[in-house]
């Protein structure tokens, strides 16, 4: 038995400093833990949009057929996109509002691109809980501010698609887009 007691490394039972066994323990568990965390990453990341979903993330829209006062619904990233040709009266109505009085202060200029103020391009996704607001289709209710009206929880948007009334926190989202010519826009 006496020989067994002397197989321990010197300094192991003195009580001070790091014991060799503790070090091995911590190192082994940390190594395995880091490995497990690395494996976890792809398990979580697989839930993000896949390549084929992302591949549909850019579209081109032809504006030539949209008359003044008309709007179309198209699909961008599997969600409705509203493209609206504003009338002069609608632009005036949007410009008349003092932005500082709004919940999400923005002017019509900030929500359109320079030189194309009549083209209001927004997501057709209510910023409250994601319903499709009415107002883009022929004969749909446009709400009391002449823009869009969400029937789910009663959010009302104006002619610049800014939130004016109801539970939605933000204006309808303006996606990234650029005019490729006077009548073609690339969204996304």
């Amino acid at each position, binding site marked *: 038995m006496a020989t067994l007691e002397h197989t321990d490394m010197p300094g192991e039972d003195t009580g001070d400093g790091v014991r060799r066994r503790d070090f091995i323990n911590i190192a082994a568990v940390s190594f395995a833990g880091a490995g497990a965390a690395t494996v976890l990453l792809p398990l979580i990341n697989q*839930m*993000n949009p896949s390549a084929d979903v992302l591949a549909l993330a850019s579209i081109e829209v032809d504006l030539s057929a949209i008359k003044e006062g008309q709007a179309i619904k198209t699909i961008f990233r*599997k969600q*409705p996109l509203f493209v609206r040709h504003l009338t002069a009266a609608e632009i005036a109505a949007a410009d008349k509002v003092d932005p500082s009085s709004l919940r999400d202060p923005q002017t019509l200029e900030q929500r359109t691109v320079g030189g194309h103020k009549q083209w209001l391009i927004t997501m057709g996704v209510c910023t409250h809980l994601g*319903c499709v607001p009415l107002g883009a289709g022929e004969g749909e209710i446009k709400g009391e501010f002449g823009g869009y009206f*969400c*029937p789910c929880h009663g959010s009302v948007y104006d002619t610049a698609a800014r939130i004016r009334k109801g539970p939605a926190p933000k204006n309808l989202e303006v996606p990234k887009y650029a005019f490729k010519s006077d009548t073609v826009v690339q969204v996304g």
Partner: protein
Amino acid sequence: MSFPWANHYAPKHSLTKWLDERLPLPRLVYNAVGAGYPVPRNLNYFWNFGVLSGAALGIQIVTGIILAMHYAANAGVAFDSVEHIMRDVNSGWMLRYAHATGASFFFIVVYLHIFRGLFYGSYKAPREMVWLLGLVIFLLMMATAFMGYVLPWGQMSFWGAKVITGLFSAIPVVGTPIQTWLLGGFAPDNAALNRFFSLHYLLPFVIAGVIVLHIWALHIPGSSNPTGIEVKGPQDTVPFHPYYTAKDGFGLGVFLILYCLVLFYAPNYLGHPDNYIPANPLSTPAHIVPEWYFWPFYAILRAFTVDFILPAKLWGVLAMFGSILLLFFLPWLDKSPVRSGNYRPAFKKFFWLLVIDVLILGYCGGSPAEEPFVMISQLAAAYYFAHFLIILPIVSRMERPLPLPNSITEAVLEGKSGATLSTSTQG
């Protein structure tokens, strides 16, 4: 575990003896839900709903596994495969209606089970863990039911998925990436449908696992009873089998009759006709409502209409999750040492007010988001939180409870077993 006078398992047949020495499974069952589990002798019919919840889960698992043999979780064909089940699969209509109606009945019995726990103070020491595990089961049930409702890929399925995952977008900064991550896209589509199906199949078995823990935690102190006083001796209990297996069997019969009445005569009564329209990402139904069992929580979600420090949307989401998380603290909010509501005159009045309040919330949650329902749900939601955070702690401190019987047996012999859910203050 259990009381010292519990019956002991003694296998007589050589085969059961052989099995008992190698895998004592019959012994486990005997001690858990057999003659080896002593139960207070004065349980009323409100104590049936635990077993009924288990039966409802059983129905859901059996019908669900069969439905999964015929259903296709692909956004292109999911709706048609459900119609295929309804029209072509032998008895498919019955299995699907049994599953859909079964979900509603599962919630009915679970809500009554929770009601029982709230009135008779079953959440109090030493049964806090039973209550907490029950709430975990409830949350898992809600997640499972929500994902199951998405699978038919009708209009309500699609927009339900959009609105509920949209709740996560209310979280500041990381909200929208979380929603995209949950859906695997920018809107509900094939990726979302597939993962919902996978999880909808998995979660019921997780629920079954937590039920095992729920029952395990229950059997440490043993079942509570309508008087709320502790078991004092063998005269206060009867063996679970045959006494409560018989009583639960009777309750199960009544449950199945009611279930079959709805299943065969009004299978769509609790559903929504819009879900028979295939999902259309470009058109939102005019009136989106969740299934009836989510209405009270949906009313709380919609009750917030004004920004106050945080956006109204975030308040709604926090309040909705908070209304359930609050229940996790209930054992420590209600400090009264008396468990049963029958002996708590003030508590009893506020308890019934809470029940009415939740029913009002449910009614508002199922109504369109317009006045007067918005204002009523605001008041009702405020009262819901006030009940748990203000009224209950104060009542449990101020109230003078009625005298308790000396023992369960004494209460039974005097005809005051507390077995009735009395509304008088006499207990």
